[in-house]
């Protein structure tokens, strides 16, 4: 080892307090970024996950005219021929008035969102059925699943209760059906159908007088990376239809736009935190330079050039950056691992979608390393400005 790296290392490691302080500054900067990522990106991804799982799948197909008239069998068959597609489920949406008589009292709710599903296809394409906390899904045509909040608003409707559902059909006529509550849906974080009523799609079609029509198809991909390609192929295959096919990101754009801005701001705060750690490094290195004035003078007297002194202190910055980036990344990964293994949830409800974004982890580590080196430039420059004869007086 040359004398410069040796001196850089020894000067730093022999001042443990300074070393620990500088490394901690970098570590905390990185940890803040990792924690932000786990929580806010995890929350974002959890919302995207739930939107996909409950409402859109990986691709959602709608029609410019609100309803798809092509048979659901034809559309589903087209998709299911593609090996990248796992499942397809038709959906139909409306709003309804719903009432129940409990203890001789009529409880009524208006404008309740209602979703019609094909239960056998839906359980393959979505995870709504997994949110049924009591009872079962809408396998029978006269059954209905109430979202937990709807059930609460209906005075605590329970499985087996009978509810009356009124929908205005396409001709403006009120259609009323009495349906049996087969299940109550409650999703973690409330992103599922907690505020919605789910019924069999054929019953809803019948009530809406839209025989054979569908509101949307949610397509679940076996290979999510192929979503855009499959969407494009689908649109090319039905050039005469007015289909609108969007990937989950496109379909949720409006919903997620604000959230993304929030994440960007939080990340910026994280990077500001990292810059604060750079200032801490400047301060600590200035302390090291001030404490090593005599040594710098000796080195210069022995013939070290200004650039040798510069290199020694920049190497210290590199050491601080490397150790800090290593420790910070290890701490951040430990936190991420903990969050993933414990299925950490946001606000004790929505389980975070924790992932390891290796590109971002590497970028964070490299950024903090670079910041540490940049932060060492000024103290290093100051060190080179010491006049040997003056520096050697500082005994």
């Amino acid at each position, binding site marked *: 080892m*040359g*004398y410069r790296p*040796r*001196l850089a290392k*020894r*000067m730093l490691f*022999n001042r443990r307090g300074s070393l620990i302080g500088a490394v901690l500054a970098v570590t905390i900067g990185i940890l803040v970024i990792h924690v932000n990522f786990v929580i806010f990106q995890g929350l974002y991804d959890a919302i995207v996950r739930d939107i996909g799982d409950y409402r859109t799948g990986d691709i959602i197909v709608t029609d410019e005219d609100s309803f798809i008239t092509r048979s659901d069998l034809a559309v589903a068959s087209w998709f299911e021929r593609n090996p990248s597609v796992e499942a397809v489920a038709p959906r139909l949406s409306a709003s309804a008035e719903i009432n129940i008589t409990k203890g001789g009292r009529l409880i009524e709710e208006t404008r309740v969102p209602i979703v019609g599903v094909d239960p056998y296809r839906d359980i393959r394409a979505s995870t709504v059925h997994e949110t049924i906390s009591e009872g079962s899904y809408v396998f029978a045509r006269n059954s209905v699943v109430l979202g937990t909040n709807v059930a609460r608003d209906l005075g605590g409707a329970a499985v087996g209760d009978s509810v009356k559902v009124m929908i205005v059909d396409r001709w403006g006529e009120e259609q009323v059906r009495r349906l049996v509550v087969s299940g109550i849906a409650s999703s973690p974080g409330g992103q599922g159908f907690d505020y919605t009523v789910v019924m069999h799609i054929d019953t809803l079609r019948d009530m809406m007088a839209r025989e054979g029509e569908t509101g949307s198809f949610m397509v679940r991909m076996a290979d999510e990376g192929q979503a855009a390609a499959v969407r494009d192929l689908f649109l090319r295959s039905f050039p005469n239809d007015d289909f609108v096919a969007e990937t989950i990101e496109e379909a949720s754009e409006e919903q997620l736009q604000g959230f993304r801005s929030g994440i960007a701001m939080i990340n910026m705060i994280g990077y500001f935190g990292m810059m604060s750690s750079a200032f801490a490094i400047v301060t600590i290195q200035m302390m090291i330079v001030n404490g090593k004035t*005599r*040594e710098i003078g*000796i*080195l*210069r*007297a*022995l*013939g*070290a*050039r*200004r650039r*040798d002194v510069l290199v020694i202190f920049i190497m210290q910055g590199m050491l601080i950056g490397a150790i800090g980036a290593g420790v910070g990344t290890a701490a951040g990964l430990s936190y991420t691992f903990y969050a993933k293994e414990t299925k950490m949830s946001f606000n004790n409800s929505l389980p975070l979608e924790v992932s390891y974004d290796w590109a971002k982890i590497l970028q964070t580590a490299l950024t903090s390393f670079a910041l540490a080196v940049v932060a060492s430039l000024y103290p290093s420059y100051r060190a080179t400005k010491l*006049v*040997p*004869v003056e520096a*050697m007086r500082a*005994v």
Partner: protein
Amino acid sequence: MLRARGVTKSYGQDETRVTALRGASFDIRRGEFVLIVGASGSGKTTLLNMIGLLSSPTSGRVIIEGVDTTRLGSSGLAAFRNRRLGFVAQFANLLVDLTILENVMLPRQIAGGGWARGDRPRRDALELLRSVGLEAQAAQRANKVSGGQAQRAAIARGLINRPSIVLADEPTGNLDSVSSESVVRLMKDTARRLNQTFVVVTHDREYFGEVDRVITVSDGRVYEEEDDPRVAAATATAATRKREVLP
């Protein structure tokens, strides 16, 4: 070997201007053991800094081995100090983060090039440490040895690049009498053995006994021993003390 011509050093400007050294001119020849003596604040350390190229003169020239050092830039001066000069300071000025051996090797490693590669700096440093009686302390951290041992290590460090001149600033100033005698003996032995030029600033002239020349600095002016009657008197006193200290 070394020629100082009209070397003047002033600090400050106009009314606050202080002249620490006034037109110092003298020669030092190869192999000489030269003392620079004078009262505190007389300018002797300033003179040493000038000929040690640690500080540049306000006017005048310092020529070492034919090179007019006042014409050298910062990097040139650093390289010149490294290859041609050795330093021994009052407080040894070893780097406490390094071992004794690493301290001694340091000027060689700073020099770089062929003779700094491989095992050679280490072998040469160990040889020097053996010659100053510090082989056993080679692996010790510099702040773990006594003042006398540190000063011996500093002498070894000053010799590692086989410099033209070793400059020592109060090398005994921080040592007890036993260590001082030992360090002085080492310097004089080395000077004789290697025909090494030594220029030593000291208050403790009595420890040095007979030397080749004595330069006195008084109020910023430089006198050769024979020029200055005060020096002759001091030399006589020192000779008496030397007999007391070094029988």
